[in-house]
């Protein structure tokens, strides 16, 4: 009888079928035991398959980016001995986050990176920034500092298996991570490079330069200025924003003021518990000059001098708040606004100030106010809030509060807390437009005269929570803006289908959908 089944056995290709046939055969004899063995094996086989599929997904084996090589680039002039750069309290407070900027260029401007002129210009630029080539270490108080030991930055070369346009339309946040060296700081950072540059080439031309760093070292402005300086050195132009290293004039105030709103806000923020991580996704909306102009005209009577940031932040805030509205209908809606305060201090800090110069503040509105009074009202409230927080007092008091969190004996600063989020945060990057000449705009981080970057992405690490909205200038001059929204995946999906947003005909980039 077994012989009848033999051809079937020999022909069947999968173990479950094999076992099934054996099972039928031995059914009369040892059916029960065989059945159990069969089930066990089948389950293991299936779960084995599932495991393989799981690792297949998780290891991104179908990732479109292949890393080719990794090397270290050093500065062109040696740093002197015993040079240490210590971080301010604000720098420490940003310690939980990391910053990742990607510049997308249409033409491949760096050929043969090994010995190319661009690597020489990178070395030249790095000699102006000894902190960038140093390594993190603890100083005598136990706080983080940079030992400027001239060790260099890591530069990674990679290839992307798709064209630039295809990437911009179809990649999502997870894939964009592949274009930067997104490492977390290890326990012993003495051999870890805090700044990492990745140069990725697209098929058919196109280049992405990704810069990653810890947020302790630099805020988005500093990092962009660093990349800008690289291109200016490459084109043998004088650097418009040379690095400036003194900390803000905080230390000159004899009487500190910790009773302001900002200090209280920061206090509340520091006490917030860490939220469990939720899967985030991001999308980028590009609004043209004409659209923004139209929008500003529409709200002109409610808010005559609204800036594009005001109106876009108001728009996205109201739409996102609506999406979350399902649960608690009568809660107050709040938005944390983050601004760069280089120009807000008296006297203003130079744009080239190296370090963190961000100020967070919160604006709350009642849900009826948001829903009922329309976009113009929200924009007006936002505008009012922005002009109020621009007072130096608030900013300095926030800094003083951060300074005051140190342990009296050792001088060690308290542990950092999450600054971007977990509540909904909106970052104003409009200051990247510096109207001081043709090379002021961040989009003029060009290597060649006409090949400006097609797009610039800013990603911040560790912003899981309610979400992050970043308003940046658009590629052309004028009122056009690019808004990157990071939200929990489901909410983002709904936002991308929101009529109010789509009504402005934005161009959708890097959202992972076609």
């Amino acid at each position, binding site marked *: 009888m077994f012989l009848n089944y033999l051809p079937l056995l020999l022909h069947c290709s999968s173990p479950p079928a094999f076992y099934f046939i054996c099972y039928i055969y031995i059914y009369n004899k040892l059916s029960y035991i065989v059945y159990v063995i069969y089930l066990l094996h089948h389950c293991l086989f299936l779960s084995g398959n599932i495991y393989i599929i799981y690792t297949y997904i998780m290891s991104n084996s179908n990732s479109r980016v292949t890393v080719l090589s990794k*090397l270290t*680039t*050093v500065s*062109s002039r*040696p740093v002197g001995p015993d040079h240490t750069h210590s971080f301010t309290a604000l720098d420490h407070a940003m310690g939980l986050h990391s910053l990742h900027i990607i510049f997308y260029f249409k033409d491949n401007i760096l050929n043969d990176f090994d*010995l190319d002129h661009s690597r020489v210009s990178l070395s030249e630029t790095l000699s102006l920034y000894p902190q960038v080539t140093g390594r993190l270490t603890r100083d005598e108080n136990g706080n983080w500092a940079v030992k400027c030991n*001239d060790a260099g930055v890591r530069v990674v070369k990679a290839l992307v298996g798709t064209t630039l346009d295809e990437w911009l339309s179809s990649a999502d946040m997870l894939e964009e991570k592949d274009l930067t060296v997104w490492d977390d700081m290890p326990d012993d950072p003495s051999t870890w490079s805090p700044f990492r540059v990745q140069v990725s080439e697209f098929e058919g031309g196109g280049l992405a330069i990704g810069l990653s760093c810890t947020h302790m070292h630099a805020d988005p402005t500093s990092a962009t200025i660093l990349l800008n300086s690289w291109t200016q050195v490459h084109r043998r132009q004088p650097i418009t924003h040379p690095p400036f290293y003194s900390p803000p004039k905080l230390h000159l105030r004899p009487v500190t003021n910790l009773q302001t709103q900002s200090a209280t806000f920061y206090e509340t923020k520091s006490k917030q518990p860490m939220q469990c991580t939720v899967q985030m996704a991001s999308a980028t909306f590009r609004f043209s000059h004409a659209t923004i102009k139209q929008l500003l005209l529409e709200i002109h009577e409610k808010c005559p001098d609204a800036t594009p940031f005001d109106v876009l932040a108001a728009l996205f805030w109201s739409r996102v708040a609506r999406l979350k509205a399902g649960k608690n209908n009568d809660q107050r809606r709040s938005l944390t606004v983050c601004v760069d305060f280089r120009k807000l201090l008296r006297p203003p800090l130079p744009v080239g100030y190296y370090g963190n110069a961000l100020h967070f503040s919160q604006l709350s509105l009642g849900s009826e106010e948001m829903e009922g009074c329309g976009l113009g009202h929200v924009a007006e409230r936002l505008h009012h809030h922005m002009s109020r927080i621009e007072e130096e007092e608030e900013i300095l008091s926030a800094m003083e509060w951060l300074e005051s969190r140190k342990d009296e004996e050792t001088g060690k600063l308290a542990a950092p807390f999450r600054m971007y989020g977990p509540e909904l945060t909106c970052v104003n990057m409009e200051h990247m437009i510096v109207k001081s000449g043709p090379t002021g705009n961040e989009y003029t981080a060009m290597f060649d005269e006409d090949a400006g970057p097609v797009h610039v992405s800013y990603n911040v690490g560790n912003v899981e929570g309610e979400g992050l909205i970043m308003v940046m200038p658009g590629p052309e001059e004028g009122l056009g803006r690019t808004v990157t929204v990071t939200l929990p995946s489901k909410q983002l999906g709904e936002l991308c289908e929101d009529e109010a947003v789509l009504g402005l005909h934005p161009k959708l980039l890097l959202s992972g959908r076609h």
Partner: protein
Amino acid sequence: MPPILPDFSNSVKLKYVKLGYQYLVNHIIYLTLIPVMLGILIEVLRLGPDEILKLWKSLHFDLVQILCSSFLIIFIATVYFMSKPRTVFLVDYACYKPPVTCRVPFSTFMEHSRLILSNNPKSVEFQMRILERSGLGEETCLPPAIHYIPPTPTMEAARGEAELVIFSAMDSLFKKTGLKPKDIDILIVNCSLFSPTPSLSAMVINKYKLRSNIKSFNLSGMGCSAGLISIDLARDLLQVHPNSNAVVVSTEIITPNYYQGNERAMLLPNCLFRMGGAAILISNRRSERRRAKYRLVHVVRTHKGADDKAYRCVFEEEDKDGKVGISLSKDLMAIAGEALKSNITTIGPLVLPASEQLLFLLTLIGRKIFNPKWKPYIPDFKQAFEHFCIHAGGRAVIDELQKNLQLSAEHCEASRMTLHRFGNTSSSSLWYEMNYIESKGRMKKGDRIWQIAFGSGFKCNSAVWKCNRSIKTPVDGPWADCIDRYPVHIPEVVKL
């Protein structure tokens, strides 16, 4: 308080005695000639012009006699000029300056070491200790392939480095001397550890489209002293070929020889060897006599390979993991000292002034006949040479030679500063040192330079050059942008 003054006056007396002795012995011929000339002059004056005329008329000169004597004189003069070895000139040379992107500061080197040898913290510690005491600076350079994590020493990368170094040096040489590639008659390339097929000399001929009847040589495997071996070869060839130009390229290609294992004796070269190269134009043409910088006086080569210990002291072999590296034995310094003594014994009689040789001879006779316990007299080479270029093989080598030859710190300055700025660039380090002396403006006409190089095998080679014309600063070369910072004080141990 011990009395210092009598000692001082004693040493001053000794100094003057020594000086007097040297002047006497070195210029003995002049000192004996002058009284003889004075005597003749007095005799002539005493005799008066009439007496001299009478003396002249009394000599009967036959035409045959005159012809024979003049023929003899001409014959002797011809034989002398024909058998004289051709003078060999060094017209000019160019050293390779690596780009700033190849710079390797200590921290980068140690970081890469830690990342690559993560399983062997002891080896990393060893490398750190070596680097701290090495005498290298923060501006030495490694080729691009070594900057990768992990390093990518492919053959293509090695060829790339060879092309970069050799072609840059040769372009620089062509620019400096105005030499046309078609005028090169002899080409000698020496690179010890990288020897591809076709050879590096073929690579140069291909790049610059040199003549098809060029005499090209590629010396490989001869270690750090191969530079002077090439110069010796060029000199010998130029004796045979009149009116010729020879280009000598000395370099060391680091890429394929970066040791990636854990054996300590083999990690040492990683810490010391750096990228560098030099191209030298040697000629025996009379037209170059005016603008040549140096004249080659002597080349002395000593080989201690007959001794087994000397043969094995720098040995390329596989470690227990199968990785190839160059292991340096612990008695390297002792063997180097021996080789140096041997070399000095040969070169001494050629270069030392008569006073030193006499003293050495007397001490030697005294030791043999009277008392073997007499200290051997170490001749004072500072009297024979103005400048010393000691191969920058490492701090220990320079210290050893300074002690053996009793040189001052200023004499060894060129070697130490080259080690600090460029590292151990193997056969080309002598040319960087020479360039340092020129850039400092210390090279004057008539100065004699002694180049000493050590190499695996174990070899000790010396070359003696005489400066043909004073060299004015600023000198265009690898030291042009940093010469003002030198000399620097190099601490015994750099804290990493």
